[in-house]
């Protein structure tokens, strides 16, 4: 859920990288941190196990001036992919504004992709949210590995909704498709925010507006 602070002229958004274990969520965020200019990024926080697997979440704050007159803060999170950490995934999804679902392109990982996708839908539903109402994209990662499923096959398997999600191919460890994914989801989140604000403004009674503006 976006948060607007009129005093600071600041709007905050939360984007979550979701997907099965070892699909490259943390690698995406590491590459974003490495790639983005220093004035636009904060410190990357990673809470990992001794085996370098995500235990709680990774967190990276970013700034952008794309909305006129306001500073946009994007809070980038990853979830732990391992099945046992579902409570943590649910916590991280709270108040989410946009999702990048990172799918592992290897044939052997198709079942895990499907399970993680179903888990995402389930966790959103428990918080009264659905993918239909949330900006999200599908990133097909690890395209450089041998024995990967064709992108059109993955699209057919994972993108069956009435509102089809945009898809991108990526090799996160080489930073291919990483910034493209981030910019795409950021613009979708901003677009939905602007649209929903227009709708709210139209529905708002004039007398209330006058009182608050004064």
């Amino acid at each position, binding site marked *: *859920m*976006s*948060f*607007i*602070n*009129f*005093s*600071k002229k600041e*709007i*905050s958004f*939360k984007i979550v990288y979701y997907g099965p274990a070892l699909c490259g969520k943390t690698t995406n965020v590491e590459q974003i941190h490495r*790639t*983005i*200019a*220093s004035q636009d990024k*904060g*410190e990357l*926080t990673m*809470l990992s196990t001794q085996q370098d697997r995500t235990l*709680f*979440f990774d*967190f990276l*704050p*970013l700034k*952008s001036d*794309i*909305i*006129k007159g*306001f500073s*946009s*803060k*994007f*809070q980038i999170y990853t979830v732990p992919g391992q099945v046992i950490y579902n*409570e943590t995934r649910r*916590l*991280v999804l*709270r*108040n*989410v504004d946009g999702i990048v679902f990172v799918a592992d392109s290897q044939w052997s990982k198709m079942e895990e992709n499907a399970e993680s996708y179903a888990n995402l839908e389930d966790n959103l539903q428990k918080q009264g949210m659905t993918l239909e109402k949330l900006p999200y994209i599908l990133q097909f990662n690890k395209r450089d590995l041998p024995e990967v499923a064709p992108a059109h096959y993955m699209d057919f398997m994972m993108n069956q909704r009435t509102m089809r999600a945009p898809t991108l191919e990526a090799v996160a460890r080489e930073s291919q498709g990483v*910034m493209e994914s*981030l*910019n795409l989801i*950021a*613009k979708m989140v*901003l*677009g939905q*925010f*602007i649209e*929903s*604000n227009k709708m*709210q*403004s139209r*529905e*708002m*009674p004039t007398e*209330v*507006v006058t*009182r*608050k*503006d004064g």
Partner: protein
Amino acid sequence: MFTSLTEEASKKLEGILFDLLTMVEAEAIFLCDRGGNIIASKSVSTYPHEDNIAALAAGSFFATLEIARLIGESEFQNVLHQGEHRSVFMERTSKDMLLLVVFSRDSNPGLVKLHTRLACQKLEEFDILVDQCGGQGVVSKSVTFEMDPQARPFKSNP
């Protein structure tokens, strides 16, 4: 859906946080939501990594609520992390937000707990301050948000 804070509300909130900061001689105070967004903050000097602290605090505090549920408690109202030089006290407010106080060993933890509880009660009186959009005119028709459709939100380091 989004939450918003008017300038007037922001000033009032910061006033409550400032009173608490001076009363308990804390180093920094953050009010954040469940998602880890900072709603308001006050500190003695510029505090580094505010966003990271808020995100971690919100995550860890709301994780303890799950622990509470699993052991048959309805909730843990507050949590204290006590360090050698600095400590952190977190208390949940009625609006399902988190008040986080960073204080040094010069401050009295008992006093911090007491005054944080009182500050949370004051925050309860300001239920209207942080409202869901569509409530009492929080976002007005005069405010429009625009972005350049061709612009990229984030650019790579040259």
